[in-house]
Structure formats: C-alpha cells, structure tokens
C-alpha cells in the first residue's frame, strides 16, 4: 500500500511530463495545462495522506525499489525514505507546485510551446520529489542534478533568445560546480562509512567510536559547497539573478520556493554529519550572514522588479544558512516554509503585474497599479509585510527565531543579519511603492490595457497570501508544533521553546522596529518626496557599484571564463599544432635525410667501386689489423 502510494506520489508528475511531451501538442494548451496541474495535485494529495499517517505513527516509511549501483564496499538501492522532513518538504513542494501550475495555465496561455512548458514543470516537480524522497545520497543526487537540468530547460525556455540561453547555461554550470563538491562529499562519506543510506549512516556515526573528524569535516565542507551551488550562496550565487530570464512562474517555483532550498534540505538531512564539524558550521554561518547582507545591499538599488525579488531570495537563503550554521536546523526549515509562501506569492504577484504590462519589468515604468489591480496589490502587500518581519505575519516568527539564535551564538552575525532584514524591509516597500502607488509612468498604450489578472492568476495569489499571513502559526515561539514534529530527526535535543524572558522580547522588539524603520525610510523616499530611481546612465557613486552588483559577474568573467577560454585558444593554436608538428617532424626529417641521401647515388661507377673498396678495407682492417 505504502509502496504504491509512494510510487504514485513519485511518478505522477513524471507521467504528466511524458504525456505532455508526446501528446501535449495535440490535446491543446489548456488541456495540457490541466493535465500538468492534476498530476502535481495527485502527488500533493498522496503527500497529505502520508503526512497524516506519519503525524500519528511518528515513524518513517522506508521503501527499497531496486538495486541501482554498486561499488566494492557498498551497494546503492533506488530507495525512498518518507520521514517527517521529506514529507514536510513534499507538502510545500507539491502544494505550491500545483498552485503555480494552476497559475501558469493562464499566465503562459499565449505561448506556442505551452505543453512543453508544463512538461518541463512536471519534470521539475518529479526531480524535486526524487531529491526530497530519496533514501540515500545518490538518489538525492539524481534529483539534485535533475532539478538543475529542469531549471536549465526552463530558464532557456524562450530559446530563440541567446541571452536567455546564456543565463540557462550559466545556471547549469554554476550548479555543476556545486555538484562536484557534493560528489566529493559523497565519495568521502562512502569511503568512510561504506554506505550512502541516511538511516544506516546515522546509526553508523552514532555507534562508531573513533571517527576521523578531519575527513568528516572535509566531507561536510564539500557538501556545503554543493549546497552553495544550489542555494545560491557566496561565491556561487550569481546565477540566480540571471535565472530570472525564465518565465515568472518558473522563478516563483524553482528559484524562490523549492529548488533553491535543496541545499538547506540536504544539510538538514545530514545534520548528524554537520554536527561533527563545528568549524564548518561556523563557515556556513558566516557565509550565510555575509550573503544575506551583500544580496540585500544589491537589492536596494535594482530597478527590475524580478531582480529585486531574486536578490531578496538570495539574502533570505543567506539567513537560513545562518541558522543552519548555528545548528538550528528546525529554525532554518521554518524560515524555508514561510519564505516559500511569501516569496512565491511575491513572484506570482510580480508576474501578474508584468502580465498586465505586457512584459514590462522595469519599476521605473510602473506605478499606480493599486487602483486597477486590487487583489494583486493586497496579496503583494501582505507578503511584503511578511518578508519584512512585521507581526503577526509568518515572516516575523521565522526571521525572529533566526535572529534570536544568531544573538545567542554570535552578536556580530546577529548585527549583520538584523541590518540585512532592515534593508529587506526597505527594498520590499520601495518595490511596493514604486509599483502600486502614485500614478502610472508607463506608455499610454500600456495604460489603456491595464487590467486585473484573471482569476486563475489571482486565486493562487490569494491562497499564498493567506498562507503567508498565517504560516507562522506552525511554530509559535512559546509552543512550536514544528519543532516537536521535526524532533526525531535531530540527534541533539532541540532547545525546546526557551522560556521567554526580557532579552527575547527586546530582541523581538528590535527586529520589528528595524523592519518598521526600513519601511519608514522607503515611505519617506518614495511617497513623501516621491523620488523615482535614476536612469541607468545617471546612476553614480556607491549606488552604481551596487546597481552593477559589485561587478562580481565581470570579475568572474575576467578571472575564470576568459582565462579558460584563452587557455583553450592557446592549447588549440599552439600546443596542438606543436604536438602534431613534432610527430610530422619525425617524418619530415627522415624525408629530408632521404633527399640528401639521393645525392650519394651519383651514378658514377668509379665512385661506387671506390666505396666498395673502402667498405672492404674497413671491414678487413677492423677484423684483422685492429685486433
């Protein structure tokens, strides 16, 4: 029963994908969209069933499908593990997934290759499920690379535009850099414990007395590199903003809600490994904090609505890593969930805006949409409040827990994180004001066509907005259902809702005030003085640096891409030619000798006989006179 249900849960999206690839074109756009949505919905329902089951039985379901690969010291089964963590992840992956599918039916309706779009989306969901549900690291790796592939396909969905293709390629390759790290980690773990199975691994670590800690922390580091790739942390974050080239639903699903959280999932999965490597955990925390700040600063000045959201995603992910770094996995997970809600909502909202403006993404050409796009505005507002950490919205609780944990461990990082979240509040409301307030700055033509998006678009917005609003309830500071639910995963006792004292309250207050300050500044700038961001040419000073993302892309190009291309050219033009010239040279030399040798063959009998006698004499001399 379990097996079949699990298979259904896993394979439904795959079936959807196959169906859409092969027959999607024939059955018409809407139909293919419906198929895509339904298949994901099916998985969602299956997940719900499992969720209820697990929630009462409290014990994980493990299913081995078939034996996949082997090495000398371990076999790898294609196995599924449905425990609290994976179920939780599946819930929002499939849940939000189906919502976004629904949204896409309307959003992509004008695209000729809609069936392909849904096929890819389904494929993505399938791989995401594989990633989450796999019972060992290698199955996770399948999903890991699979989602990378789908993000490649979807970012480059409009493949006639080579810039989009470049973005897609960049995403895939940067992910691959991370994947190499992940692989190395897998190798180390495999050779250390000769298993890749989570459960056996956990017991092995727990039981074994003398662990090679240095190797383990090396493995932890390698895995973390992998996580950096997927979850867009410094130094591998630059692909995520470019990934906005894809259709907005893709950005919402893959690059905000689900795929980018894979890194956090993996680290949480392997918490027992990371717990053994405190120094690596510190690195994670620092990287996370720095990433969140850097991304936030960049987001301050971006004018492309999706770019802002992208950077805010990076910065939020940074916060999650901060939490992970402190071993507060449940906190990170909590923020992942709330973030999934409000960020998905924000993206879809921006999508709805873009949809209304026929593809306009520059906030300097927007404004005043509040009147026409009521629902979008409301939902957008709610989510913005949530992300800015304003009570009682979900973001408040999750972010607050992160900050609190940070404060307990390291004040500096806490400061950085708070600063980041202040900025978050600022740029989110900057976005909000520039988009919805004041009056419209676009062309007349656009203005005439302004309209609220159809219900297929607004419905997901509303649902997500509600979730974004109330999502915090699952883990209230005083009694956290989530912590209890996740408890069995973690080796060390989850510090159960620490008694709430003045310190906590002050921290909370500081956070909230920070948020409000951010909003205030934004209000002053863009409502009171109603500024509008300068055109690209006029941007100057620090703003220019920020606007150009600290020139990181350029630096990377200069250091890595160009150098490797130069190297390639060098190899091609010099080394290759030199090598083959050498080989040909051997032939040429002999040929030349032959050519010179021909001159010896003078044709003169006298000379021939002379050489004859010479040879005779030399032989005789050698044999008889030399002795």
């Amino acid at each position, binding site marked *: 029963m379990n097996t079949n249900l699990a298979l259904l849960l896993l394979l439904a999206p795959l079936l959807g994908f196959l169906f859409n*690839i092969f027959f999607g074109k024939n059955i018409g756009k809407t139909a293919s969209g419906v198929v895509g949505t339904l298949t994901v919905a099916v998985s969602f329902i299956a997940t719900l069933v499992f969720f209820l089951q697990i929630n009462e039985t409290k014990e994980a379901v493990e299913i081995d499908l*078939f*034996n*996949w*690969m*082997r*090495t*000398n010291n371990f076999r790898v089964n*294609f196995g599924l593990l449905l425990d609290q963590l994976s179920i939780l992840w599946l819930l929002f992956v499939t849940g939000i997934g189906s919502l976004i599918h629904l949204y896409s039916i309307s959003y992509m309706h004008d695209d000729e290759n809609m069936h392909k779009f849904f096929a890819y989306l389904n494929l993505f969901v399938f791989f995401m499920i594989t990633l989450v549900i796999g019972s060992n690291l*290698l199955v996770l*790796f*399948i999903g890991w*690379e*699979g989602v990378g*592939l789908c993000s*490649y396909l979807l970012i*480059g969905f409009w*493949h*006639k535009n*080579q810039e989009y*293709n*470049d973005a897609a*390629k960049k995403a*895939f*390759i940067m992910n*691959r*850099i991370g*994947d*190499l790290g992940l*692989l*190395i980690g897998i*190798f*180390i773990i*495999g*050779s250390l414990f000769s298993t890749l199975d989570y459960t056996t691994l956990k017991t092995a670590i727990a039981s074994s007395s003398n662990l090679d800690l240095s190797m383990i922390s*090396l493995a932890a580091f390698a895995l973390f590199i992998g996580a950096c790739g997927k979850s867009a942390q410094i130094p591998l974050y630059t692909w995520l903003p470019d990934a906005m080239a894809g259709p907005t639903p893709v950005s919402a699903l893959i690059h905000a809600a689900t795929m980018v959280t894979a890194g956090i999932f993996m680290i949480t999965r392997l918490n027992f490994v990371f717990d053994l490597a405190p120094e690596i955990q510190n690195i994670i925390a620092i990287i996370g904090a720095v990433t969140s700040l850097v991304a936030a600063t960049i987001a301050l000045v971006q004018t492309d609505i999706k770019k802002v959201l992208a950077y805010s995603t990076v910065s939020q992910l940074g916060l999650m890593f901060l939490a992970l770094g402190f071993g507060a996995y449940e906190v990170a997970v909590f923020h992942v969930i709330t973030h999934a809600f409000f960020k998905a909502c924000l993206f879809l909202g921006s999508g709805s805006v873009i949809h209304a403006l026929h593809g306009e993404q520059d906030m300097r050409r927007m404004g005043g949409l509040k009147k026409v796009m009521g629902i979008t505005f409301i939902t957008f507002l709610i989510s913005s409040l949530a992300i800015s950490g304003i009570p009682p919205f979900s973001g408040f609780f999750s972010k607050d827990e992160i900050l609190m944990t940070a404060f307990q461990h390291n004040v500096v990082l806490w400061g950085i994180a708070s600063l980041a979240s202040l900025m978050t509040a600022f740029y989110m409301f900057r976005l909000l004001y520039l988009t919805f307030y004041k009056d419209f700055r676009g062309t007349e033509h656009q203005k005439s066509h302004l309209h609220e998006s159809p219900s297929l678009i607004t419905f997901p917005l509303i649902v997500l907005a509600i979730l974004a609003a109330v999502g915090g309830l699952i883990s209230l500071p005083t009694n956290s259902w989530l912590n209890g639910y996740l408890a069995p995963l973690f080796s060390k006792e989850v510090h159960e809702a620490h008694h709430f004292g003045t310190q906590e309250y002050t921290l909370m207050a500081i956070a909230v005030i920070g948020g409000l300050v951010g909003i205030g500044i934004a209000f002053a700038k863009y409502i009171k003085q109603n500024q509008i961001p300068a055109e690209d040419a006029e941007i100057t000073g620090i703003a220019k640096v920020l606007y150009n993302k600290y020139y990181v892309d350029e630096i990377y190009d200069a250091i890595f891409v160009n150098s*490797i*291309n130069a*190297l*390639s*050219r060098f*190899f*091609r033009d010099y080394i*290759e030619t030199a*090598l*083959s010239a*050498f*080989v*040909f040279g051997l*032939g040429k030399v002999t040929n030349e000798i032959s050519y010179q040798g021909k001159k010896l063959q003078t044709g003169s009998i006298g000379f021939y006989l002379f050489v004859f006698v010479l040879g005779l004499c030399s032989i005789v001399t050698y044999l008889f006179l030399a002795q």
Partner: protein
Amino acid sequence: MNVSLLLIILLVGAFATYFAGDKLASRVALLFSLVAFGISIALLNAYNAGANINFFKFWINKPAISYSLTADGLSLIMLLLTTALTPLIIYSSFGNEYKNAKSFYALILFMSFAMAGTFLASDGLLYYIFWELSLIPIYFIALIWGNGDTEERKKAVVKFFIYTLAGSLFMLIAFVYLYQKAGSFLIADLYNVKLSRVEQFWIFWAFFLAYAIKIPIIPFHTWQAKVYQKAPTVGTMLLSGIMLKMGLYSVLRWQIPITPIASKTYLPILIGFGIAGVIYGSIVALRQKDLKKLLAYSSLAHVGLIAAGCYSLNSDGLRGAVLQMLAHGFVVVGLFFAAEIIYRRFETRTIADMGGIRTQAPKFASLFMILVLASVALPTTFNFVGEFTVLYSLAQINLWFALLGGTTIILSAYYMLKMYQQVMLGETNTKVFADVTLHETLVLVIIVAVIFIFGLYPRPINELITPALDQIVRTLYKIQ
C-alpha cells in the same frame, strides 16, 4: 556453441557483402551483423548458463602460436558492444549514398570481425594479428570514403596509420620477448611468466606506447581529431565507438596483469596522464569550430577518465572503466550520428553555420539533448554510472585525483551545452532543416533506450563483468 562461429559469420559476411554488389551491399551487411549480434547474445546466455566459452587449436608449432579464443565476462561485454554497435552503425549509414558501396560495407564487416577477434583472442600473437588487421579496413574507409580535401585527408590518415602501427610494433617486440621468456604466447602462461623489475618496466612501456596511441592518451592523441574529422562518419563511429575501446580493453587484459609491478609503480603517473587528458581534452574542446573535431576532443577527455579508471588498479576503477567504455561507445556513436544528421541537411560541420535548428526539428532537438546530457553524465544515464564509479575509485586512491578528474563534470557541461546552444538554439535558421526521418529516429531512440535502461539498471552488466575484473585484480596482487 563454438565461439569462432561468430568470427566466421562476420568474415563470410564481409565477402558476401562484397559479392552482393553495390545495390544490396548495405542490407546484406546489416543482415550479417545482426546475425553476429544474435550469436553473441547466444554466447552470453551460454556463459550465464555456466558454459565456459573457449576454442583452442594449434596453429604454428615453432614458435608455438595457437588459434585460441576465450571469452570471460569482460570479453563478452566488449564483444556485445562490438556486435551491437556494428549493425547500428551500418543502419545509420542508410541515408547516405556511397560510391563502390560493396567494398565499403565489406570493409566495415571485416573491421568488426577483426575487432571481435581482438576481444576474444587469448593467444598473444593471435591477439596482435587481429589488432593489426583491424587497422587496415579503417585506413581504407577513412582514405577512400572520407571527406574534405584529399591531400589533407591523406596526410591525416597516413599519419594515423603509421603512428598506430609504430606503437603496436613495439608491443610486438614485447610479445616476442615474453615468448622467449615464457615459451608460449598463451595468455595464461604470459600471466605466470616471472619477470624482473627491469624487464617488466620495458615491457610495460612497450605496451603503453601501443595503447596510449590507440586510446589515445595525451600527448599521443595528435592523430585523433583530424582523422575523426576527415573520416566518413561511419568510420568515425567505428573508431571512437569500438576501436579505441580495444586499447582500453587491452590495458586490462594484457598490460596490467602481465606487468603488475610496473603498473603499480607507475600508477600515479598513469592516472595523471589520464586526468591530464580529461582536463586538456575538455579545454581544447571549448573552442573548436568543427563539430566533429569538438566531439573528438570531448571523446579524448572521456577516454582519459576511462584510462585513469583502468590504471587505478582497483576493481571499482576497472568496473567503472568498463561501464564507461560501453556508455561512451553508445553515446559517442549517437553524437557523431547527430552530427551526420545535421551534415545531411546543411552540408556543413562548421558550428558557426548552424543554430536555430530546435524550432524546426523538435524531435531531433530532444534526442540530441538527451545525448548531450548523457555525455555530461547526468544521473540516470549510463554514463553517470560509469563516471561515478571511476571517480569514486580515484577518490579511494587520492582525493585530488577525484577532484581534478571531477572537473570533467563542470567542463563537459560547459563545452557540450555551449555546443548545443550554438548548434541547436537561437533564432530560427534561414535554411530548412527537415526533422529526423524514421530510420534516423530509430537509431537515436535505440541508443537513448540503452542509455537509460543501463543508466537505471546497470546490475546485469555489473554481475557479468565483476568476476572477470576481480580475477584481473587478483592476478595483479598475487605477485608481490
């Protein structure tokens, strides 16, 4: 069941094809190659049923040379690769018109006969003879039916021939020397012959020269790209799909077990060679203007990894190497066929002249994409299984090997996706690109099917080859 029947069929097939005349040649060749495939399947069943497949007959008594064939798991799998790819390759060529087709297809069958023999022979000299024989047909295929400027092609092909022959002649010396030590060319006796360190080193390098040129391992690869480019695609497929596997197979079958001490001593150097090949090949592939050359260099990179696996001398590495050989065999054939498909329509191999094909030929685009993904070893493809195992075995030896070798994951993604983008994507091409025909689709689909089936369920292959490989590893560590 007599194993030499397989060889006979292929040989007879070659003649039959020649006498069938240009009209029927291709079909006859296909028929015979399919029969050969069937036979090798039958052999496989027999082997799994526990029969030990060998054939022994004295041939020359002074020096003692015997016509002796033996098939263990390793030989069988290579045999299957050969006999499975041959019909596929022949079938893939159905779209083309070849002048003097009868000789063309006859040569193909003859080559596959020689290669099959190489994989089966268990007598050093017989093996050497097959090894050399396989060189003649490909030489003529590339020379006569090749493309591009004749003079340039001549240079490339002759260089290839002389270069490879040079390598293998040194192997011949090694064999003769071994004979004079062991008094026999039989592989079993060669395994047991006692060699001093110095002797081993000389013999080892003599073998290495032959194999390094054939595989090719850098810096002995200079013949490869040009020949791949100039040869007709069928020839390129035979070369890259099967023939270079001969070199790798020989490393496992002959070089390592005969000279264990030397192999162990040189292990790091050789793995270094392999990995250098990986990085070098990938980087050179980045900036190739010609599609076939690009694929050639990518093949160089992958083969480098396989070689590293072979020389890692632990059964993981060996297994991974073999798996990767098979996977690479199929994928590279597929890729070259894709190049051929494009050539049939655009009559160019210059990447710059392509692009914007995907919109015109979605089917082809998807199949090509899958091949590309396979060659970058995406999980669930056959290549991943092999690459993972090899890299894992390298990690066992030294993490740096795994790390450097692992760069293939990044670099291959880089150049393959770059290639795919330039070839397939972008604004719709002005020239018309008809989508793949039925038989083209069939070929590609078969390859794709193999890639996925064994990518998800490599177990049968593992079970087939593991005993043989363990045997090799044992011979390797028996003599200390």
